[in-house]
């Protein structure tokens, strides 16, 4: 599966202080929803991903519930964070 530019950009470097919308699969709409839920930065979402023990099902399910993210986008986001974790952790 080829990955998006956004994905590659995110995975390519430490996430630092990036916004949550920098994560692949999280656009402005989902970004707003997540920000409203308190997940304003990429690292906060990453924290949730870690909190769920990098479990794909759980994370996707959580994204769906929290921000109404579609399964596809949630999977993209998961892959993005997962790959970042593989690279930098």
């Amino acid at each position, binding site marked *: 599966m080829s990955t998006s530019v956004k994905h590659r950009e995110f995975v390519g470097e430490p996430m630092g202080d990036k916004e949550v919308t920098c994560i692949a699969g999280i656009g402005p709409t989902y970004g*707003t*929803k997540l920000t*409203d*839920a*308190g997940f304003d930065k990429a690292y906060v979402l990453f924290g*949730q991903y*870690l*909190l*769920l*023990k990098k*479990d794909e*099902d*759980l994370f996707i*399910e*959580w994204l769906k*519930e929290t921000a*109404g993210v579609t399964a596809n986008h949630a999977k993209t986001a998961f892959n993005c964070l997962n790959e970042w974790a593989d690279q930098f952790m």
Partner: protein
Amino acid sequence: MPPNGAITTTPRSRMPPTTPSSGKSRPKKETLHYLAASSSTTSVDAARTLLERGANVNAIDRDGATPLHYACTHDNVAMAQLLLTFGADPMSADKLGRTAYSIAKGNTLRFLRRYKKSSNRQRLGFFRRFFACHSRNETFFIVRNNQEVAPLRPTALAEAASISFNRGNVLTNSYRCAKKKIRATFHAIRRSRSNSTATLQDVVLTSEGIRTVTTPSRRAPKATVYAKRSMSVSDLLLIPDRRDIKNEDVKTRGSPVKKTRGTGRSRTPEAILNPRKQRTPVNHHKRSKSQETKLVAMPSPNSMAYYNTSRARNAGLRPAPSAPPLSPEPAIAAVKTPKTPTTPKTSKGRSKSPANTTAYFTADESLELLGNNMEKLNIESKSAKSSKLKTPSKPTTSSSTSFSSAEDDKEAEVSTPTTVDDGEIRKIRRLREGELKSELKKFGISPAGPLDARTRRLYEKKLLIERRKITNRGYSPDADVVSCRNSPQLELVLRNGFLPADFASRARKCDENVRSEFSGNGFGYNAFCYLIMDPRILGSNVENLTLETFVRSIFYVGKGSKNRPLAHFIDARNERRDKLDKLKTCEKLKTIDELWTLGFGIPRHEISHGVSDEEAFVREASIIEAVKLKNLRNKKAGEFHGTTKSWDNITKSEYGTFLLDRALSTLKLEGIRLITEDNLPDSLYPYVNNRRGAGGGRTPKTPK
């Protein structure tokens, strides 16, 4: 300020706090009036700031109206509460003799009624809750234990306020108490949120206090929503028994204690729980309001519509005798209206908390009905299924009946439509953290991550799904998997002594799939699987060998290829001979060594001859899955290939059990053959390097 007639007749709209038509000459002291009419969060904040700075809460405009008049007439509960906290008098009359109380409407009216009746102590509670929910930035407000709160003295309060505002960051007990209560309700709200698809509210607990975050899509004016929501938090704290409510409906007045708890009780609980159901009442409500405003100007409440709409709110309650005649005298007929249990409006005979709670329950009752029906269906389908399959261990249906009241159960909707709520989710929810974790562990979701309010629901759901998977196949999910020696599937067969029909047919299908997938071109045919057993457990009576003994005796499941069938034994022999370390580290060699030392020949049974490597791997892995790795000396669980990778654990162990069952029958046919150290070939590859003669280990022993 517009004249009063204008105020009452204008439909509810946002009054701009900016300069209106009469702008320039607007006296400073009327700012609060303008703010009071606006229902945004910022205006509440602004008003609060003004009041803190000493603005007169009972300031009058040219009509003699106080800010509270405006707040009440625009149904700004939050603002009204704020003003009351700072000592506004709801009974001060304007030039036309109207009091704030008399022109209040909607939730504000409801609040004022309760406020009027409540004691000082209870009023303190109102304010405390209000400020606990409405903490702006990091400041929070604690109403001191004023001796006289009735109309709170502006001065006394300003003093108290200034203390707490000027970084009075003392977490007093009262504040903590409120915070705790609110936090306690979070779970309830969060759960209820999964039902409300729009998920419009999110309460965030920060270190500073409690902040409510609204999604921008919210249609209602912010401040009101704000206040409502904050109230709903406390509302959820105390949901009276349904019987109580009925009693209260019968009685004209309930005990005052009850009323006080649900401050500013609004529709919100219902709104949060059932946004769709709420829609109608909301429109209803609005309509009634606009009509009511007209009625103020033209007080001839003849239209049936008027009675229809506002009766629910006003029924059973007369305006206070002191209230001037301008207030709409509503509804004498209202009390008599028959109550149908389906409409959410019904039991609002008393326009106060229990009434609304009833509405909440009635709304839920439909859910309950639905749930019960579903449960019935579920039980039926289950019993049909179990009778058809003749599976002895049926899914426990008793659990579903034991939960009589259908609480809000969203998971049932979320999961697949075929699965129905049978009370399991509630059982799961009641589990404590440790219990939930150990439950998850049973299903291989282990170890679960930290369980907090955010993650717990997800794990609950996952556990539910796993349990349902098992239930759907006719196993009892409550079987203690951890303490079981083998996989639940194998245990089931061991208990029964035979393979249930459906079980066998599923496994046979798996077998067919495996056979067709891993044979033919490109696949070898020289692999096989074998089991090494402990002769001490196995015994020698092969005829009367039970599956249980057979399974228990197995200590190694292996996959071999034809040219090295005895690899491990030869390894062990070599290790023994050379006194190498491997005997200590490698469990299976250690066991072989042990048995040999004790003088036993080791029984070895080959199964699945002439299959490809992949197939042998799959079969081996399935058997390991069934027997469970912990009962074996195998180092690792087997590998699955191709489509079998996507099998779930149940399928795997079912297939493994099936293979074991067959292995037992072939063992019975072939008899036990024992391998001793002496009859092993020298070479690891007896058939490839056949120079020395392959024979030793292969010569069958006659069963004893």
